[in-house]
């Protein structure tokens, strides 16, 4: 961190990398889904075209200030998460707002965006949006509990709330995935909900709610949300890698690890119908919660 200029440049590069990787992953997910479904599928860069097209839409409508600003809230959450989560182990190449990656702060900043977006969706006055938001919030209560249990277990076990410290621990002890297996299981099962792939795509379920909260967003608004989504996806994947897979030393390693993680919700989603809201919540309060408890017990005992 020699200078402010270097710092800002690094931040921008981090965001751009996150955007590109997230978009590419989503494109690859479409491609892989297509292959499973017996078809050729769009090119992997299709999402970039879609995003660019959305950005180049000529007109847009909004239903008021909150609806107008909703995607900006979402962007705050995604970019803040990217900036807080250390991308690589040494942190030289991708500098970020280094508060040691405080996990509690991260937990809360990650819900900042969805809530802002929910307010935007609320202002549209579209019942589909409101229903989608209530579903999303309910589901969030569902998967946050096992997710927090996993995190608390880790934090307690290693007496730190800092992601950087946890990554440093893994340099000596090996991947937390193996030393805290229950926390990993709980966190991965919670991740299924976090990524909102099937069977947890209840928020924007097209056949039920006609795409839910985003049903009034088009053009630049949808573009911002799409970009934010891809950045957020990258942030979440990096978080998992940092937490459980020992972080990454270089970009290639990071890509391999994140994509491996990303395959889990994607492949599960391809062959699953969608849960109803209460079923989704109950799912998270079943096995994931049990693993969460085991993780806590594990943390207490060791």
């Amino acid at each position, binding site marked *: 961190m020699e200078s402010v200029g270097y710092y800002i440049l690094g931040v921008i590069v981090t965001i751009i990398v996150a955007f590109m990787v997230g978009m590419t992953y989503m494109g690859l997910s479409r491609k892989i889904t297509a292959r499973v479904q017996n078809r050729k599928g*769009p090119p992997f860069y299709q999402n970039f075209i879609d995003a*660019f097209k959305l950005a180049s839409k000529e007109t847009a409508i909004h239903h008021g200030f909150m609806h107008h600003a909703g995607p900006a809230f979402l962007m705050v959450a995604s970019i803040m998460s990217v900036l807080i989560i250390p991308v690589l182990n040494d942190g030289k190449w991708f500098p970020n707002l280094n508060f040691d990656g405080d996990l509690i702060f991260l937990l809360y900043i990650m819900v900042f965006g969805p809530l802002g977006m929910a307010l935007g969706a609320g202002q549209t006055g579209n019942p589909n949006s409101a229903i989608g938001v209530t579903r999303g919030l309910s589901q969030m209560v569902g998967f946050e509990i096992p997710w927090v249990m996993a995190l608390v277990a880790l934090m307690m076990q290693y007496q730190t709330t800092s992601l950087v410290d946890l990554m440093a621990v893994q340099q000596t002890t090996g991947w937390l995935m193996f030393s805290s297996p229950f926390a990993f299981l709980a966190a991965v099962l919670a991740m299924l909900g976090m990524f909102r792939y099937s069977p947890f795509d209840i928020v924007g379920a097209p056949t039920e709610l006609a795409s839910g909260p985003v049903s009034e967003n088009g053009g630049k608004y949808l573009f911002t949300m799409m970009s934010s989504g891809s950045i957020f996806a990258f942030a979440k994947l990096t978080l998992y890698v940092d937490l459980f897979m020992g972080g990454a030393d270089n970009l290639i390693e990071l890509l391999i690890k994140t994509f491996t993680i990303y395959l889990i919700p994607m492949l599960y989603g391809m062959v699953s119908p969608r849960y109803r809201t209460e079923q989704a919540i109950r799912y998270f309060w079943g096995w994931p919660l049990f693993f969460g408890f085991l993780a806590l017990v594990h943390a207490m005992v060791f």
Partner: protein
Amino acid sequence: MINDKNSQKIADFIKNWARKHSIWVLAYGTGCGAIEIPPTMTSRYDAERLGVRGAATPRQADVLLITGYLTTKTLKRVIRVYEQMQDPKYVIGFGSCTINGGMYYDSYNTIKVLDKYLPVDVYINGCMPRPEAVLAGFGKLQQLIAEGKANGAQKYKDDHEYYRGNLRKIIGNKYEMPLYNW
């Protein structure tokens, strides 16, 4: 430095290229043509490889696919949906019945000529058009977009009175058709 016209041209080219390869079709099966849309979208014909993909609500959609005849009751909804779509937007008339009424030429409840009510960019004829024909229709639309000729939205804006007048003629004054977008 950079010629304004040239940069405009390049920007237009890139924009049109993106629009051409990302066509989001509104999920609205207005008529019996809707039966050939699933095959077009699914594994054998797979329109997604051309960037064609469904959109759930009009705010996100680029293309309004009029799959066949429009009854007067549907016409009102179609026009409302069309007006809620964002520019640039395109209309594909699908099937013979959108062109000249097809076999419903003497029906009291279907319109015969779609382009009196909506600015149609591409017609796909046949009853019913095969998925290949639908793909060809999308190909034609892509071609028009690339050439910058698919400007139906502008036409609709310019001739709004004309289109609205034609609509009024059918639905009379009883039905409240709010002037939302214009």
